[in-house]
């Protein structure tokens, strides 16, 4: 899906378009950046409720070309500036993470599939 198709599906807004031609096929939702770094593949869409710099940096490290913020969150001007600097497309959704992901999944975006069960803590 293109960023335009994504924002249309979730009634959201395109906040910054990096200008790269994006055809996103997979997405990963998390508010835990370490999990994004651990599991997301390069080229995916990242869906998160975090709007601070570490979200942008995480995407930058993991070669994630686009971030979709959820729960109607709108990043600050500094965050937009960082996204412009590193070239990451930003979008926002008025829905919760669950509903945002649900709508996009229904529209054809795919996830990474099953992960092995690992005991934590």
């Amino acid at each position: 899906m293109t960023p335009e198709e994504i924002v249309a599906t979730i009634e959201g807004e395109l906040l910054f378009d990096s200008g790269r031609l994006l055809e996103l096929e997979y997405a990963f939702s998390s508010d835990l950046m370490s999990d994004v770094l651990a599991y997301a593949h390069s080229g995916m869409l990242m869906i998160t409720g975090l709007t601070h710099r570490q979200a942008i940096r995480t995407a930058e490290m993991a070669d994630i070309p686009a971030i979709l913020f959820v729960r109607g969150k709108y990043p600050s001007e500094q965050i937009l500036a960082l996204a412009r600097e590193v070239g990451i497309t930003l979008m926002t959704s008025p829905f919760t993470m669950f509903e945002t992901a649900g709508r996009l999944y229904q529209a054809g975006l795919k996830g990474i599939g099953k992960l092995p069960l690992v005991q934590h803590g």
Partner: protein
Amino acid sequence: MKKPFALFAADKAPSLSKVHELIRELKVSQVMTKTLYTLPPDATMQEVKDLMRQHRISGVPVVDAQGLCGIVSLEDLIHALEQQALSAPIRQFMTPMPLVVARAQEPLLEAFKRLEQHNVGRMPVLDGHGALVGIVTHTDIIASLLKSLQDVYTEDERLCDCNPQYFFDALRSDATNLLLRYHVEAGDFAHGGEASARIKRALLRIGASPRLARRVAIAAYEAEINLIIHTNRGGSVLVDVTPQEIRVVVQDSGPGIPDVEEARRPGFSTASPRAREMGFGAGMGLTNIERCSDRLDIWSALGVGTRLEIVFKLPA
């Protein structure tokens, strides 16, 4: 035998097949000019001249009630000028049907071959129903091919402008290392990730594959965040690049980890609520570093400090 840095840079240039693929994927519809200026066959050559001058175009499709019926080019206009026949109707000078045309959905390369084969400067573009939807010229095609080539390079290798091979080849030694040093402040979430971003860019610049640069960047980033979250006075990140491996050494001066084995367990965390707000501190940092590196060694002593050594082997 000493391994040259050139090998490290072997996967640097975008492969020909990728360029090929990109060019093969391009459709006429992506390249054509969609803004059309057309004239009916009974308009005069004077009107052709005016339209060409006004819009700086070199060809005008001629359209009657049935649709496309010809094309009139700059060369045709010159003929009309030579014969001082600007008041003559277009149909006297235009190239009539059947014209060499392109289809909106056909691959650009096929259309280009036809353009060359018939030695024409432009082709009207028709959609699936035969309706005129655009015009495609030599210039459009060349500009779009150059643009896609540029996209291939900028996407993969924004940093192709310098050739690391020459740089390292010029440095004669028995063993060459490239050392990059960074300092990370404790508690400095505002700059968290800057060192890792610079490391990633530096590695791409010296010719690392995007995949390798990503692995190193993720490990360095988790380590950098640990320095911000856990240390008393911050610490240093040192990246040591040789033709055989990349070694990232992260050192701090305390407080030290009481039980390293426990700290390495997935989900074990002592992070502050502040760190958790940032999306870290869930006990995945060391696990992530281990996962994307080839080796992770941790030395730590309470009251002394911690030293992480993260090794990435380079492809032989």
